[in-house]
């Protein structure tokens, strides 16, 4: 692991409200490091928009992240041209999983996380390991360098039936607290809250060290 390394973290939460106003949030920190210790970028985006209601976030090796981002954008565009519709999150997760498993014995060094709303505006989130073992869940997924801390904060602070604004506060606090004890993450974060009306993006302030 002496290559360029993006040591990052991503967390996300879904929200299923009784009133049918459903949303997903996805967040990541902004740091990119090299050789573990040295900070090389403080505005490094790890969350990519595949289509208006579908996001792919990755942590791991920066070069593999970019290669995969290009691959998946290409695959999604072909699908859109052929089918004249965008991919369902579940279908996209399947594409990501098989693409990663193709390289079972020489894997891409990334941990992807997929979040989106499907055609019926139902939230879908899934995490994956580097060879594509998908684990779709109904509450939260974490990935990255400091996943244990993130598991801890999310497991404690996640609640069902949060309003989008509350969800934003919870996911941001999870992100900032979860990266507070990790010297390889930080420099603020980017949070996306996806509802059926659109996507709210916020850049949040965090420790700059």
């Amino acid at each position, binding site marked *: *692991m*002496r*290559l360029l390394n993006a040591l990052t973290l991503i967390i996300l939460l879904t929200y299923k409200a009784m009133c049918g106003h459903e949303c997903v949030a996805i967040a990541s920190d902004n740091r990119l490091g090299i050789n573990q210790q040295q900070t090389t970028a403080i505005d490094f985006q790890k969350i990519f*928009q*595949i*289509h*208006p209601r579908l996001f792919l976030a990755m942590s791991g*090796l920066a070069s593999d992240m970019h290669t995969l981002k290009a691959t998946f954008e290409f695959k999604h565009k072909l699908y*859109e041209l052929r089918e004249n*519709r*965008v991919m*369902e999150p*579940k279908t996209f997760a*399947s594409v990501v*999983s*098989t693409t*990663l*498993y*193709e*390289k*079972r*014995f*020489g*894997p891409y*060094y990334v*941990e992807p996380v997929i979040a989106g709303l499907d055609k019926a505006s139902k939230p879908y989130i899934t*995490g994956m*390991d*580097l*060879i*594509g*073992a*998908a*684990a779709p*869940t109904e509450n939260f997924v974490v990935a990255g360098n400091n*996943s*244990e801390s993130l*598991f801890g904060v999310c497991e*404690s*602070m996640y*609640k069902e039936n949060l309003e989008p*604004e*509350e969800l*934003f*506060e*919870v996911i*941001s*606090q999870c992100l*900032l607290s979860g990266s507070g004890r990790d010297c390889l993450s930080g420099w*603020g974060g980017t949070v996306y809250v996806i509802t*059926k*009306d*659109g*996507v*709210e*993006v*916020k*850049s*949040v*302030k965090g420790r700059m060290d």
Partner: protein
Amino acid sequence: MQDPDAFDLGGFEFSASSHNAKEGGFTSKLATKTGTTISGVIYADGVVLGADTRSTNGETVADKNCEKIHYIAPNIYCCGAGTAADTEAVTGTYYVYFSIFQLILILKGMVSSALFLHRKSTLRESRVVSAQSILKSHLFKYQGHVGAALVLGGFDIHGPQLFTVYPHGSSDCLPYATMGSGSLAAMSIFESDYKDGMSEDEAKLLVARSIRAGIFNDLGSGSNIDLCVLSRAGTKYLRNFEIPQERTYIRAEGYKFKTGTTVINKRNFQTATSTTTEPKKIL
């Protein structure tokens, strides 16, 4: 790296493996391995398969309620232990959804796809031995590197069948079987209480009890019990058949954050459009 002409790569891509090895090796260190309890038993009219639902990543639980009983064919299911990605890729998953005009079936996984095509060409029900032989020849070819340890069960024209398949490609045909890190705990239940010709309810309770032994005595296994009953009458997939324990405490105070707790630098709202992604930088 293997020479592509000398060896059938079976769908895998090896181009980065030598490069990765040179860089100090990322190999499959981060791959999720499921410390697992899976088991199966044959009863009078069929087979019962069982699994716990914990998936671990080292000493942390990566998923508290994952599915370890995989679809192979309508009459065949398979429990998987070992490397999560391998068990999923080797066996199968499927889901169905409605498009505007037609019903779309998404089928993933080696054996389930192979048997699906075989059924369409022969117009006959799949047999458990077909699944078993495809699995073991694949696993043998990869010398244990495809890390899937399986309990395969099904009901076909020969009646109920139960197999275990090991990662190196060997297999057993048994009346009761266990696999995974909790296999000894589960086997202790079978060895003391298995009998021939049990009823469906007896078999379900015995399998559930064997999984519970794994859940409570093996740290790699935990959470809930999934069962799958395969018989002449059809297949019953009993997801979360038993939830032995719930979280014991939830904070009375709760965690509440007032709006404005988090300091925001910049914000933007992108209104929903139906198709096509145009805006590249939304912040």
